[in-house]
């Protein structure tokens, strides 16, 4: 079942993050190089062929989300599940991961960067939404996750419904804030998740909310003080962004992901980044079809 799958991903991510935070496992360090495959660029068309021939690709990822896309001050390259999936895509274009140019994208500049051609692909915990698909192309999803609550360890809050009319922290302008309001709580926005964590710890708010993957990491960092509660009350389908000017990208990405799902590289990436805890890697999500 779909919901089950989501939960499995969340559980896996959460545990993985806790490990990463404590032991600097796969999610925290720099990932391994992935060599480009032997491909014939003539098999591709349009922009995909161009990139293949050039042997260089620019990919936007997050630099501040442990386990997904994170670059520590000392690291040369970002690391995380998003980054590993990006390397798989690059490899299918015949590009070595060391020839990938990583660009930090934040929530606000993902569409502008794609539209302006500053990046070829975006893998930055980029939720697929119909609204975004008006401006950019989104292929995938390659992961499905959902929004939960992080509360003090001694809190009696069990669910978002316990927080009607109460203030719940998340990142300013994020979809999480919107969702919180939709559920009858009052979203208050801060610049980063760690600031929200602080607001939960100092008692200004009763809870914070965002993707369960992220919350689990913070719960692990503050063991005994914070815990993740509640069923996911949103479903985030994380996909790959590309420019609308290059619709041929979609087929390439979808094919590449499908291959990775089938040949085990996707599962391997998950295990390396979010999976060092040993929790079973979830089933791969269903891929959206590309509009012709």
């Amino acid at each position, binding site marked *: 079942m779909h919901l089950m799958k989501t939960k499995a991903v969340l559980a896996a991510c959460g545990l993985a993050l806790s490990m990463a935070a404590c032991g600097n496992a796969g999610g925290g360090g720099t990932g391994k190089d992935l060599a480009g495959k032997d491909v014939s660029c003539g098999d591709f068309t349009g922009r995909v062929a161009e990139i293949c021939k050039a042997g260089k690709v620019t990919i936007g990822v997050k630099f501040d989300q442990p386990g997904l896309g994170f670059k520590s001050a000392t690291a040369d390259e970002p690391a995380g599940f998003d980054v590993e999936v990006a390397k798989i895509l690059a490899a299918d274009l015949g590009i070595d991961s060391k020839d990938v140019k990583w660009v930090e994208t934040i*929530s*606000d500049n993902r*569409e*502008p960067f794609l539209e302006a051609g500053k990046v070829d692909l975006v893998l930055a915990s980029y939720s697929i*939404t119909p*609204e*975004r698909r*008006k*401006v*950019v192309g989104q292929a995938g999803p390659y992961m499905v996750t959902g929004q939960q609550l992080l509360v003090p360890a001694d809190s009696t809050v069990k669910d978002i419904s316990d927080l009607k009319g109460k*203030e719940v*922290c998340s990142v*300013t*302008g*994020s*979809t999480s*804030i*919107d969702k919180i309001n939709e559920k009858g709580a*009052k*979203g*208050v*926005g*801060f*610049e980063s998740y760690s*600031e929200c964590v*602080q*607001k939960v710890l*100092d*008692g*200004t708010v009763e809870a914070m909310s965002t993707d369960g993957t992220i919350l689990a990491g913070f719960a692990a960092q503050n063991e005994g003080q914070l815990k993740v509660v509640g069923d996911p009350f949103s479903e985030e389908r994380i996909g790959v962004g590309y420019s609308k000017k290059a619709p041929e990208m979609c087929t390439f990405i979808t094919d590449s992901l499908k291959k990775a799902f089938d040949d085990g590289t996707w599962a391997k990436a998950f295990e390396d980044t979010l999976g060092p805890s040993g929790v079973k890697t979830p089933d791969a999500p269903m891929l959206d079809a590309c509009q012709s």
Partner: protein
Amino acid sequence: MDFLTNGHNAYLESFFYTLMLFLVSGVLSLVLGTILVACRVGPVAVLRVAGGWYVTIVRSTPLVVVFALFQFAAPMLGIRFGWVQIHIGTVDFTSFFAVAVVALTLYTSTFVCEALRSGINSVPLGQAEAARAIGLTFGGTMSQVILPQAFRASVPPLASVLIALIKNTSVAYIFGVGEAVAQMRIMTNNYASERVPIFLTFAAGYIVIVFVVSFFANHLEKHWRTA
């Protein structure tokens, strides 16, 4: 434009927060700034020095740092604003709003103080001497003669300070207040295809507020010039 058809209430509500932040901290800044300037030019040496230090330190601290201090450091010292609980319809004024008002007021009052001080310095010394010569005390001299003239001379710099305050309220967007910029971020995230119209619509909101303030300032200036 979907963001307006679906979100015009959210838009207006967010600007209501912006406006309230501006009005409340504006009034408090004027009051605190006046007290500060009285300290700075007054006859008590301790207050003069203290006022000078306060202005120097707070004025040279980035506003976002002042916010952060009150949002993150103050609770550790037991300074909280949980008692602030005012709800008007769907609009809430709670500790986040209170912290924003405190930060904006402490910060802006230093600029008010300096704007007034420039106004005071522009009042000829003879005005104070004449005031003292008819028997007014320091308080009387300040309140009856110096400050009214200083306020007049300070209208243009004070208007600049208040206009800066209008825009500075936007710093609250990353400190838990759902003011205009916070709402703008939500909208640009949700309506990715309408990013530019969203920016322009929110810019327009600020322009309207600034325009109203400038209008009043110009009006006051003209009114007092003929006086």
